[in-house]
């Protein structure tokens, strides 16, 4: 069986769900004839027609708003942000309208908003966003961020089948850089479940998205020194798998929370706080957070590399924990 890239996994998930369920449709900028800015929806319009692969004006409020309205009517829209950065243009309607349907009105709003996120591609400050934290404190959404092709496909299918609005954050650095053999049969990855990517006993790294590879590189390096690292790929940011986090911390007693978004007010702060509250007695050292600098993601490669977290910073944090 052919190996599937991360981006192909996303395309497959959309295609299979659209074939399985006629309520599923895609709406966004340049998603139709052009096949999406990254070709994520390439070929979908040929198979499903312009009624189900809808090109829109440059209007993120309209895209998310219209998708939300259609979702209330029983459709299952996938709203694409050309870059996830532009979700800020539709932030209001997503958090104030879409996200509140269940709690305020008992209305199912089975909406997926997805788009390419993350840095490392020299996209500059407006094409590198990691948006999860700005949505975590607005209850009602679910947030997922796959780091593998398997999870990209399984989580997108789960998101499409979910009765609530789901923010699906895909990491564009991974689009064509990773691939793996995927199952032939239909599968989903349940929202809210972490994946222990690597078992270890000395240090836990809690991370997600493209950072799982930075964590893995650091873990390989540490293994040479006989240090065994456990990597928890959260995959779902909200709701998140608290049990998996606490279980791992209870075992390793040392923890690094690693993410690509800026440090201050980042999602990692919540996970660190949860560990401090619920697993303090298990800790042998302070919780470490590794994240981007508190700056917009700069464009030029040396600046970008300096701003984003890397293996060296994870290693130095790990050594501090071991020496504590």
């Amino acid at each position, binding site marked *: 069986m052919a190996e599937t890239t991360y981006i192909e996994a996303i395309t497959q998930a959309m295609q299979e769900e659209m074939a399985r369920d006629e309520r599923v*449709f895609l709406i966004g900028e340049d998603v139709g004839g052009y096949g999406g800015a990254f070709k994520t929806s390439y070929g979908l319009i040929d198979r499903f027609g312009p*009624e*189900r692969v*809808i090109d*829109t*004006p440059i*209007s*993120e*409020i*309209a*895209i*998310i*708003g*219209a*998708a*939300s*309205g*259609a*979702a*209330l*009517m*029983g*459709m299952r*829209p996938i709203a694409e942000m050309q870059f996830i950065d532009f979700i800020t243009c539709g932030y*209001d*309607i997503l958090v*104030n*309208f879409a996200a*509140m349907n*269940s*709690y*305020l*009105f*008992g*209305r*199912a709003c089975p909406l997926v908003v997805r788009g390419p996120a993350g840095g490392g591609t020299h996209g500059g400050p407006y094409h590198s966003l990691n948006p999860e934290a700005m949505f975590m404190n607005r*209850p*009602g959404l*679910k947030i997922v961020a796959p780091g593998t092709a398997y999870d990209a496909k399984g989580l997108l299918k789960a998101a499409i089948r979910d*009765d*609530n609005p789901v923010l699906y954050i895909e990491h564009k650095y991974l689009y064509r850089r990773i691939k793996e053999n995927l199952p032939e049969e239909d599968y989903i990855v349940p929202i809210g479940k972490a994946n222990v990517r690597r078992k270890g006993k000395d240090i836990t790294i809690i991370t997600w998205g493209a950072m799982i590879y930075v964590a893995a590189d650091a873990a390989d390096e540490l293994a040479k020194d006989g240090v065994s690292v456990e990597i928890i790929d959260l995959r779902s940011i909200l709701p998140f798998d608290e049990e998996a986090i606490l279980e791992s911390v209870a075992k390793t007693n040392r923890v690094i929370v690693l993410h690509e978004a800026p440090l201050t007010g980042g999602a990692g702060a919540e996970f660190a706080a949860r560990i401090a509250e619920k697993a303090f007695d298990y800790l042998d050292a302070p919780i470490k957070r590794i994240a981007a600098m508190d700056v917009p993601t700069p464009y030029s490669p040396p600046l970008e590399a300096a701003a984003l977290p890397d293996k060296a910073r994870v290693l130095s944090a790990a050594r501090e924990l071991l020496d504590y």
Partner: protein
Amino acid sequence: MSQLTNEQLLEIAYYLRLTRTLEERLVALFRQAKVIGGLYRSLGQEGESVAAAYALDYKQGDVVQPLIRNLGAILVAGAKPADVIRQYMAKGDSPTRGRELNIHFGHPAKDGFIGQISMLGDMIPVMAGIALAGRMQKRKLVTLAFIGDGGSSTGAFWEGMNFAAVQKLPMVVIVENNGYAYSTPTVKQTLLTKLSDKALAFGCNGITIDGNDVLAVHDTTKQAVENARNGGGVTLIEVITFRMKGHAEHDNAAYVPKELIAEWAEKDAVVRFEKLLVERGVASRDELDAIQKRVREEVDQATDEAERSPMPDPSHASRGLYIEDGYWNG
């Protein structure tokens, strides 16, 4: 004249009276501190609210979306007065179970109406999406959205209108020009003298009419609705009317010139419509009085029901964030 039958004209008269009487009751409850949040009056705007909503065919699945001053529209669509009072009183068995205020409630597929959210303009793209879903589901439904002179300044309004127009969606938008957005007069919202000229920007149909002429509002809306249903796309209807009270009950509207209030009081849509019914022999004064009596009894009964309703159970505050919680099924 309108193609409305005498029976329909009397039904409109009923809804006009129901709206006004229900609101007067809400004022009384507000003064008794039984309304928990703010109270927003539609006095002066009942005519266009009822008349426009009456142009929809709810059996076809049509959906109306009110703003805060369109209580009459959701009553026409089937909202229960007792539920409206429960919403204002923050009761546990209100449609939102105490989570949201006033006429912010309703399900487009189940109720034929969906309440606004407080961010003005956001409902325009949402209503476009409801129309889009209807078309995808091969239904002939039309959506009717209300927005104001102030709301039509928002980016969401422009994006939603443009998208709906490009997609030729079956949608009608009533822009209520009621003179003020909170304290800001329309001249500070836009340099346009006719808000229907905004339709030019979208390439859709636009028309300005007298919002206090019930028959004109109904007939114009009806025509736009049927045009939309038949694939004619979006129509923007500006209705010229006037907000006879402040933004909410706390606001004495001292910024509105008294002469304007007096001038518009003379043009009251309810009085004008009833006068027309009498002149045309559709109803006698006695018959109109009977409608008023019936409405008062209904509002009395609705008030009793709502007052007996319990407040929400605080242990439910964490429930229902996600659909699978099952909270709303129970």
